[in-house]
């Protein structure tokens, strides 16, 4: 394989390109879905190929193929160069890549048990047992359990001399109960909605989730929601659990700080950002207790890796310190615009996509409170848990979320359950209203395996660490 790669890099140098890199990626996935006592899907997928990125006269070209052999690789290189050459005729600003030292290295996510070595019987059995417990409540009409295992093996090599091999293993699982009565549909999930929680860990992660232990509560809450009172419509104090806060971080901090969005290169699809480069270093993003880091090194995080897909080593960098925006997510092409070096966030969704700036693990650092203290200190408000829906505008200013469940807070105590809770706000105003964050005992990593961006579309696996936090003067109950 190394010979094939060297052949392409030699060819690239011979053609006097500004820069070229090649990535060979092999992926293996397994997904098992159980619904109402039946195996709804048992699917395995394998996928491999290579992609070549060429920078020529300041313009990028990229081509890729699933056939890995010398002739095809040379043909694909030729196509990438042809594309770059054509694109260079319509480039107003030539691409500038910052200098970087070539790396020769390898990286593997540490795991105890390879999920691909665990027998299918054992996995199906665990899911069937967990799912069966959800059906103990007759009003639960849809009971589901899911498990996914993902392995990525990739090689990155560049004309600058880098050669990096990586193996990343991820897995996750979850259960959900949907209770239905007349026209009322209510869902509860564990450990998170939309299939569960995911991490760069082995099968030990799945076992630690203890799906069975939580099934009965999940079913009970789904049924109880059928009879719960509707979420009130008012401006109030809001406490978010850490899983919902993770998605809040994702949508209203993680995406706006992506430098490619800031520069407009996602205009046509995902959108741009209200952030401008000159805001770095002085913009009050949140209250003084807000500290956010982008940490691609956090053990087990779904956004954890050794090197990004430009060969830049994984880093832990402050993004918001004491509420002030201090950095953005950057690449070799964009960091210099902030007078900084790339913080290593360029990742591609497989061999057939170019790397884009993606979140790593965007973590809100823990505070000093216990959750009980935060609730006890709240006279009136709502405590909301587990995401159900999300939406935010193309500049990431106006957001609206729905959660699966909520509870009223009255005089420092959790009160009645509320159904269909929603809340809305304006990004910086919301983060500036945060006045309490729970401590590290309540802090947890959440994997988001479905972050969409780019054209052609790319799905990134990213992580968010968060502890429950309190926000003041938030509009809840967004219905007419």
């Amino acid at each position, binding site marked *: 394989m190394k010979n094939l790669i060297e052949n392409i890099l030699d060819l690239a140098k011979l053609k006097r390109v500004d820069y070229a890199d090649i990535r060979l990626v092999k992926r293996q996935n397994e*997904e098992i*879905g159980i619904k109402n006592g039946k195996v709804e*899907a*048992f*699917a*395995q*997928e*394998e*996928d491999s190929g290579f992609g070549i990125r060429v920078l020529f006269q300041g*313009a*990028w*070209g*990229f*081509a*890729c*193929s*699933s056939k890995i052999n010398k002739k095809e690789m040379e043909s*694909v290189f030729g196509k*990438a160069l042809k*594309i*770059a*050459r*054509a*694109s260079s*005729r319509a*480039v*107003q600003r030539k691409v500038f890549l910052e200098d970087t030292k070539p790396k020769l290295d390898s990286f593997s996510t540490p795991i105890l048990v390879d999920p691909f070595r665990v*027998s*299918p*019987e054992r996995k199906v059995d665990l899911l069937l047992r967990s799912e069966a417990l959800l059906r103990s409540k007759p009003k639960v*009409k*849809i009971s589901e359990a899911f498990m996914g295992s993902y392995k990525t093996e990739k090689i990155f090599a560049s004309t600058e001399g880098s050669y990096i091999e990586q193996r990343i293993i991820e897995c996750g699982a979850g259960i959900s109960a949907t209770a*239905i009565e007349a*026209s*009322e*549909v209510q869902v509860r999930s564990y450990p998170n909605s939309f299939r569960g929680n995911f991490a760069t860990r082995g099968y030990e992660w799945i076992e630690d989730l203890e799906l069975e232990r939580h099934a009965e509560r999940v079913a009970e809450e789904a049924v109880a929601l059928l009879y719960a009172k509707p979420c009130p419509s008012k401006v109030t104090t809001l406490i978010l659990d850490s899983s919902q806060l993770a998605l809040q971080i994702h949508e209203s901090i993680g995406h706006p700080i992506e430098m490619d969005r800031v*520069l*407009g*290169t996602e*205009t*046509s*699809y995902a*959108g741009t950002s209200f952030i401008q480069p000159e805001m770095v270093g002085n913009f009050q993003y949140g209250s003084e207790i807000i500290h956010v880091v982008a940490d691609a090194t956090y053990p087990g995080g779904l956004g954890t890796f050794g090197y990004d897909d430009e060969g830049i080593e994984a880093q832990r960098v402050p993004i918001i310190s004491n509420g002030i925006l201090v950095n953005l997510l950057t690449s070799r092409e964009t960091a210099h615009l902030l007078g900084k070096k790339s913080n290593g966030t360029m990742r591609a969704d497989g061999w057939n996509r170019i790397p884009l700036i993606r979140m790593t693990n965007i973590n809100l650092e823990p505070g000093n409170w216990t959750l009980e203290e935060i609730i006890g200190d709240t006279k009136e408000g709502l405590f909301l848990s587990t995401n159900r829906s999300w*939406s935010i*505008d*193309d500049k990431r*200013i*106006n957001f*609206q979320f729905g959660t699966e469940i909520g509870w009223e807070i009255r005089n420092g105590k959790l009160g009645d359950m509320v159904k*269909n809770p*929603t809340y*809305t706000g*304006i990004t910086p105003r919301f983060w500036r209203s945060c006045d309490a964050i729970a401590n590290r005992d309540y802090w947890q990593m959440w994997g988001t395996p479905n972050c*969409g961006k780019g*054209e*052609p579309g790319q*799905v990134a696996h990213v992580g968010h660490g968060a502890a429950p936090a309190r926000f003041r003067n938030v509009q809840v109950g*967004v*219905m*007419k």
Partner: protein
Amino acid sequence: MIGIERRYPFLKKIIRDSPFDQTEIVLLAEDSSLTRFTHSTIHQHVAERNATLILRVISNKRIVVLTTNLLTPASIENLFERALSIAKIQPPNEEFLSLPQKKSFPQVKTYYEGIDYLTPRRKVEILRKLFLKVKDKGLHASGSFSNGVVELLVLNSLGVEAYQKYSDLVFHLIVHDQESSGYASFVSRNPSSFNIESLAQEAIDRVRRIPEVTIEPGEYEVILEPYAVAELLSFLGYLGFHALALQEKRSFFCNRFGEKMVDERVTIYDDGLEEEGLPIPFDFEGVPKKRVVFFESGMARDVTYDSFTAGREGKESTGHALMAPNTEGPVPINLFMKGGTSSLEEMIRSVRRGIYVTRFHYTNVVEPMKAVLTGMTRDGTFLIEEGEIKKPIKNLRFTESALRALSRVKAISKERRLCSEGTVYSRRFITGVVAPAIHVDGFYFSGASKL
């Protein structure tokens, strides 16, 4: 060309030799290119060639789906070995009846040779023409220009043999200055109908070049352009227009067939053969597409089926299976809304005070049974006063039931437009919605995008 037809004999032999009760092979190949630009400069230009084989086998009602892009005989043999071991450990799914039998499907033109002329150089020439045109107006262009050829082959052990070649061109264009933006898009299987000059002019005409004003959230009369209507229809398709949602009692259609649910001017259907859309003659199980009407003059009528959901009810599939493994249900992908009798200009003239919406962004579901959705407006939201578009307004958040909106329709445009996100995650298979513009008597905006 990709030429997957040449794999026919090999794949047919695999099916013939399969040890399973039933076997299905889907082969999907693509040769595509996508160019993105922002502020009138190209920043991404990519090309892809790939072919994926999806093997679905059934053994004693146990279903296994394996997918690979390693298409060597050894790799495919390995798939069968794995499928055997996985099938053994599953409990049978008694609700599964059968894969579909062979049926003939109509010949539909879905491939146009002109797509092959879109070389990287020609695409760049088209974009340079666009950049010059918007520069003359003091504007910038951002967007994406994508073209592809897709081949789909479906074979199964019951005799299904279905092959189709598709071409597609998708162009999204946002023309903007510092203050406002205008949007236009084009999608077609036939690239010869693409005209960059007229598309650019359409987007330019929407840019108002005056500062946006903020208006108070609340209920307003709205004119929704086809792009916005298409988004609402897509969500209705996902939430309620298919058999799986109905069978699981999570569709807004539950117990309501025959009932007038929306305005009598509203007729919505799915038709894989209508040329105004993006024709698809058969589904991912090789079943010919049937026209399915969801709302007929406002009355709830029917839903789409694949072989699994049809088997549960002893019905026939309507040809709406998606790629296996599909847990979402037979979601319709060729949606149409019948046009009305008004022109867009007449519709605007009839509004005393209201809002004109070009398109929505990041829409999501708030309450599925009522089809309550939330999302933002984007790239052209205007205040209409006394029958005229007066000024651009800052983007608004809507939180509204799509069903309620369709029950308050005052007028529907004669003209319809094929709309497509054109977004391709994983495998390319472009779908689209044909929608008119609609005038809705009351539509609820719950917030504005303002720092």
